[in-house]
């Protein structure tokens, strides 16, 4: 069937939405069960979450496979392309707001809750009656709160691995842009080279991050339990790391699709969507580097 442009396109029925709903349910049901498991539990939750997680992977593979097929068959016209673009942009906006919640928590804790516990402003009575010895300093000097939750710890020095990671992510943003320009110019070799470099840089970032976490746990005694400093540090960098992981996988998939010749100069929305996502995790990292590591 020939695809006419500027005529509405409604996709055919698909089993993937219901599959997605089922596997998502299994994943979170298993996770909730697992979290509440008592010692000596049967491991039911673990089994369910494993089935669910594998199901989610299969679902993504299957759903994207059918979308790619339809795209290669030329079914998607300009209007569908615009809908996809809007979808991706608003999805990234929702991700920005998700990180916003955690950055907001960090700012609140640093500017209000910790100083108040230290006796500033309107926390003076709490301080006097409950936590008189607590200075309300951030980081090593008492970021784990008046009860020293998690014990004494040292913080990660920003000018080592975190700085290197900053440079890695900034470089990867440049390489992905070069790859995009190469795509528009039609230089396949150059796309594969620079996109491949981007994937490698993403993987290197993750390696460094894992190394940093291990060092924090083993040598610095900085853990998720280290009061609010540990909470904000690991939750912010952890969710960011999760997004870099997703981004790296997405870039790798795009690399394979370039290899298979799925894109041309005009039609490469998937490439652009992943590139936007990559720039987004890059920008979040800059915020992390500044507010979590340096300040």
């Amino acid at each position, binding site marked *: 069937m020939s695809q006419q442009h500027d005529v509405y396109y409604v996709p055919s029925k698909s089993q993937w939405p*219901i599959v997605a709903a089922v596997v998502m349910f299994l994943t979170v049901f298993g996770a909730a069960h697992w979290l509440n498991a008592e010692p000596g539990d049967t491991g039911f939750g673990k089994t369910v979450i494993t089935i669910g997680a594998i199901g989610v992977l299969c679902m993504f593979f299957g759903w994207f496979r059918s979308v790619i097929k339809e795209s290669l068959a030329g079914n998607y016209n300009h209007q569908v392309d615009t809908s996809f673009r809007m979808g991706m942009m608003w999805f990234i906006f929702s991700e920005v707001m998700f990180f916003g919640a955690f950055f907001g928590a960090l700012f609140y804790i640093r500017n209000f809750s910790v100083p108040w516990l230290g006796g500033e402003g309107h926390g003076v009575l709490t301080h006097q009656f409950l936590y008189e010895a607590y200075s309300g300093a951030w980081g090593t000097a008492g970021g784990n709160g008046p009860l020293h939750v998690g014990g004494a710890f040292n913080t990660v020095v920003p000018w080592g691995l975190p700085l290197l990671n900053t440079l890695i992510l900034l470089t990867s943003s440049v390489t992905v842009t070069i790859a995009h320009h190469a795509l528009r110019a039609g230089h396949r070799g150059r796309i594969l080279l620079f996109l491949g470099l981007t994937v490698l840089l993403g993987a290197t970032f993750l390696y460094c991050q894992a190394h940093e976490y291990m060092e924090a746990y083993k040598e610095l005694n900085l853990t998720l339990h280290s009061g609010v400093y540990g909470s904000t540090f690991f939750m912010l960098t952890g969710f960011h790391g999760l997004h870099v992981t997703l981004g790296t996988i997405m870039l790798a998939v795009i690399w394979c699709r370039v290899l298979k010749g799925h894109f041309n100069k005009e039609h490469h929305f998937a490439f652009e969507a992943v590139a936007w996502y990559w720039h987004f995790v890059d920008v979040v990292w800059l915020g992390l580097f500044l507010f979590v590591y340096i300040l």
Partner: protein
Amino acid sequence: MAHEATHDHHDDHHHHAPQGFFQRWVMSTNHKDIGTLYLVFSLLMFFIGGSFAMVIRAELFKPGLDLVQPYFFNQMTTMHALVMIFGAIMPAFVGLGNWMIPLMIGAPDMALPRMNNLSFWILPFAFTLMLSTLFMAGGGPAGGWTMYPPLSLQSDSLAYVVFAIHLMGISSIMGAINIIATILNMRAPGMDLLKMPVFVWSWLITAFLLIAVMPVLAGAVTMLLTDKYFGTSFFNPGGGGDPVLYQHVFWFFGHPEVYIMILPAFGIISEIIPTFARKPIFGYRAMVYAIASIAFLSFIVWAHHMFAVGLPLGADIFFMYATMLIAVPTGVKVFNWVATMWGGSMTFETPMLFAIAFVILFTIGGFSGLMLAMVPADFQYHDTYFVVAHFHYVLVTGAAFAIMGATYFWLPKWTGHMYSEFWGKVHFWCSVVFVNVLFFPQHFLGLAGMPRRIPDYNVAFANFNMISSIGGFLFGASQLIFLGVVVHCAFFAKKKATDRVWEGAKGLEWTVPSPAPHHTFEVPPVVRDEELAHGHTDD
């Protein structure tokens, strides 16, 4: 009707309703079917949440702990709110949006139909997850729908509820993305933004609010989850955190959320009143700008839910004035609805009755909101039944009445038959009388100091509680009439509906046959200004 190449080659039956129950309803990519699924789901949740409310009112019928254990009572208040907000009101609006937005803007379907189906199908699973906690050892969540720590962290059901909320959030975000993409990208040529029906405008702005705040709720409940299960200290002062931090993050979501539940209602009322007043809406642009202003203000008023936690004085004052500012655009809307009716040749079919009741009763809820906005007054009213009365006036006689009005308004378009006007009116009059018997005395209870979320109370509050409970039972029973009218209209009604249905109806949705065929506007319609409800006057 010409059939263009709107479907790919897998779909060879695109101008018939597709065969097979599973294919049609579970694998759907059709905005009307998915809209119907949303609406049916929401009706089911309305009755489940309503049955929880009946338990609450039965326990409160007279002083003393007579029927249920206090812990179970707390589960009922918590679940009633979660089910009604996330299961009844929000899916109902999404269902109405799904059905009507493509029809109103001349689009063949939603922009991303498969994602639309996923948005719906997540919901039954999310609510199964959440409601299943009621049957588990330890019971369901009992710390209130706001889930304030440290109370909420004491229940093992927390993980289930948090994950259920994550699922609902994913569903809402995808639904909202879909609606924005549909409105911005799928309008028929000539359907300029400022010619769109107010309902479409209200959904565009609501969708923006959803995308902006549902992730914040996800973040807040994720912090609860890690505080309980992974040893973080976000809300633990011993570790440098602060339970009030949760309230800030939660209400940064929560306040826009209450407008998510009322802005589409504003849109619905702005469609119904002009139809039955047979006049274009008064001040179309002002209505649109008012919705946008309310949405903007919703981001800077969240702490008015927290006046009693001990905020710094400057914060109290800022949030008090910001909150009162919302009365201005809301006042514009109420004024314009009244001005639309002024001098109109009005008739009072059931949708119009609900719309007029909305304008009056929502305004009462708005005024009690203004009272609560005043910091010194709020210190007295905080967490009393006055608050309960306030938000039920805006949510039941506001959001729920608008949804019922919308159902009567568009039911003939959906089913092709007229509902029973007599039983519709019976439903309306029972609802409007009993809802006031139910909630109005709660104002007095609250002013007299009765706290909310309490299963037992001082005998001084006995009379008003009994009146309120009687109103509650009768209001609950009245909704069975609603169910009857809807089921009758969908399956048994004989009287055919015309395409236009209502004499004064304007807009593209009334140009298609009743019932609306499975696929509409496969070829973009020619938009003629005189067909439109709005935007063609020089206001």
